[in-house]
């Protein structure tokens, strides 16, 4: 379950993050459904581009939100692991 910080997460084919301007939310689009990404998840997933490593994403978030890196790392890893389990992300 624990994901290495040098892994590079990306959305799997058939899944993507997008902004819904009509409803003013961020969504994960998937086959037959779209789920709302809460603001924390959206902030993380906006940095997932299939190029940045998990470590870089955590660094960027820690800097932007001026929060302890450990706490951010825990949140990011939990989210990525759960979305990888659902095959929305490939870790």
């Amino acid at each position: 379950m624990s994901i290495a910080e040098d892994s590079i997460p990306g959305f799997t084919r058939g899944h993507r993050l997008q902004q819904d301007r009509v409803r003013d939310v961020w969504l994960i689009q998937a086959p037959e459904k779209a789920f709302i990404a809460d603001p924390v998840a959206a902030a993380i997933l906006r940095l997932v581009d299939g190029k940045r490593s998990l470590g870089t994403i955590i660094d960027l978030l820690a800097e932007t939100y001026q929060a302890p890196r450990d706490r951010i790392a825990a949140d990011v890893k939990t989210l990525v692991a759960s979305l990888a389990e659902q095959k929305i992300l490939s870790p």
Partner: protein
Amino acid sequence: MTRFPPPMSLLAELTHRCPLACPYCSNPLSLDRRQSELETQDWVRILEEAAALGVLQVHFSGGEPMARADLPALVHHASSLNLYTNLITSGVLITQATLAALDEAGLDHIQLSFQDVTETGAERIGGLRGAQERKLAAARLIRARGLPLTLNFVIHRENADRVAQMLDLAHELGAGRVEIAHTQYYGWGLKNRDLLMPSAAQLDAATDAVVKARARFGNSLAIDYVTPDYHADQPKPCMGGWGQRFLNVTPSGKVLPCHAAETIPDVTFPNVMEHALGEIWQDSALFNLFRGTAWMPEPCQSCALKEIDWGGCRCQALALTGDARATDPVCARSDRHEVVVAAAEAGHDGDFAYRRFTGTGRNETG
């Protein structure tokens, strides 16, 4: 100003032409002919209006959507509007070249339907020689390109005993998802209802096959099991509620709250050639006919579940009671529930009425 929340998805029925003739087809008995089909530029405008309205996903369907030469152009246009694009297809027109064009246009996902796992069973339903082989080849081409794939099987009394093999096939072909969908009795399916109706024992065995496959395949195959309507005693929230989430545009441009709504009497069906999609969604008589809960009779009106199932399906209420406003008789609280119980027990074998255009002995394809 938006008054009603915007729709989430659009079912774009591009054409009613189809090389197959499934007797369970949910398309209406009176099919739209090629001459009455919307033009490419009309669909382009519909996609633009849908995206502006708040639609997130567009499902290209029909008939056979791949019978339209402009499908890749429409997929491309939808993608450029950031709409999630899904193709619902029988797969018999998929080749390397037609698939490449769709993939390059930005198609997000394909739902490929199979009539059965055996060639005889499949040909008896679809009526097209060699269709099964083409579908298997199509599934392999789709996976070779890495496109996400859902397999769809419509379940009825002639194939219900093979659900376990259907699930094995989905896994073997590398589908991420499979729909095991009991026949819904609309259109041609309603016409052939007794010939499609499984027995209670068949139904239990099908359900059991799904439960076992879930244990067998775990996360590697998502199984969406659409339970049968007539063997139930509480209706499904049809379309997530009338005029709440879903828009359907027919080949000739009628805009409907569900794909069977053309059976509803005494109401005009708004057309995209006369009104904007947003105006139809908000203001048309059709979309407001059964929206919310104010229209509901008893027992729905005082029922605690009225915002859960929205009183069930209007087309089903109409087909079974003759009154589209009645409580869906699938509900055990309906005073007409016995018609559903009787229909669920009325299944028998026989000769199907195959789906075709009226006045012709055959299906249009080209």
